[in-house]
């Protein structure tokens, strides 16, 4: 165990710190947005600690905050989190044993998986995964609480532009994926469908309607599988 933590050398620590800073910023915006949408302060914090997957929490808070039903929010959140099934197949050896495995499984997310895969040796994979994962487990709910406090203390968060911050955070997070043309066309079509549906459907559903855009990616995904 001690040997493994010693593998958390300076370069790895810097990477983990950078991830934590970014996660902290996202958490501030997430907490502030949730409170501004009318949620109690505990909600983004508890949701953050228990689910620990930012994308699904954004959808959950965004859909219910816009007046949508919790069922729609739940479906969107679960769908987004289904990507953890293939994640689990790619990092099975870093999750630990016994009771630690429960925590190890919970720490699985976009950042920890990427960090672990990027390392060559098994020991460094372990250190990167757990260092990054434990950092996020602490920072994410804490920054959500801090953001929620700011959101509830500042009388008019719109004057600070906080309402523009949330969509901008989401956009910055998905931009790398949007550089892929097929994903981009799916996202654009999906977003346009959601916009067009907004005046006609109950709140929360337009985001789910966007999923029709994924159909555009099906032929490309088949091609990738055949290749």
């Amino acid at each position, binding site marked *: 165990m001690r040997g493994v933590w010693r593998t958390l050398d300076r370069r790895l620590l810097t990477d983990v710190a950078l991830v934590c800073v970014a996660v902290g910023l996202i958490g501030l915006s997430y907490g502030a947005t949730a409170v501004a*949408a009318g949620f109690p302060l505990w909600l983004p914090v508890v949701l953050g600690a228990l689910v620990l997957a930012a994308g699904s929490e954004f959808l959950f808070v965004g859909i219910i905050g816009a007046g949508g039903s919790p069922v729609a929010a739940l479906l969107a959140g679960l769908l987004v989190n289904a990507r953890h099934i293939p994640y689990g197949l790619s990092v099975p050896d870093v999750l630990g044993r016994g009771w630690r495995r429960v925590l190890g499984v919970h720490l699985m997310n976009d950042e920890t998986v990427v960090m672990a895969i990027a390392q060559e040796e098994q020991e460094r994979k372990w250190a990167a995964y757990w260092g990054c994962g434990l950092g996020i487990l602490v920072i994410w709910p804490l920054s959500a609480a801090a953001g929620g406090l700011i959101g509830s203390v500042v009388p008019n968060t719109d004057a600070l532009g906080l309402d523009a911050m949330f969509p901008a955070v989401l956009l910055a997070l*998905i931009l790398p994926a949007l550089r892929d043309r097929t994903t981009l066309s799916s996202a654009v079509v999906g977003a346009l469908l959601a916009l067009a549906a907004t005046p006609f459907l109950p709140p929360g559903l337009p985001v789910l309607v966007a999923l029709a855009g994924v159909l555009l990616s099906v032929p490309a995904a088949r091609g990738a599988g055949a290749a």
Partner: protein
Amino acid sequence: MTVSPMLLVVSIAVLAVGTFAFRFAGPALRSRITFPPQVTKLLETASVVLLAALVVTSGLMEDGVLAGVARPTGVLVGGLLAWYKAPFAVAVVGAAGTAAVLRLFGLP
């Protein structure tokens, strides 16, 4: 927001348990299932599409109507900064700052 607290708590619990089950499925079933790369790719695309829709609806709309000028402009500025590889913090603060300045000048 008029959601019953009970329904909210149940939804959070189901999302948390379901997400843990997804995370657990991979290592638990590793030797027994193969996950086709096409399905992995489609799941990734579905996530991006849902979040893109949330960007557009939360960036442009408010209560089912257009949300004014300041917020969409701020989101656009943040998106451009991120597209041209500005650091994450710069893009995010740029978005909020733009919207704040526009409102300072009285734009909705």
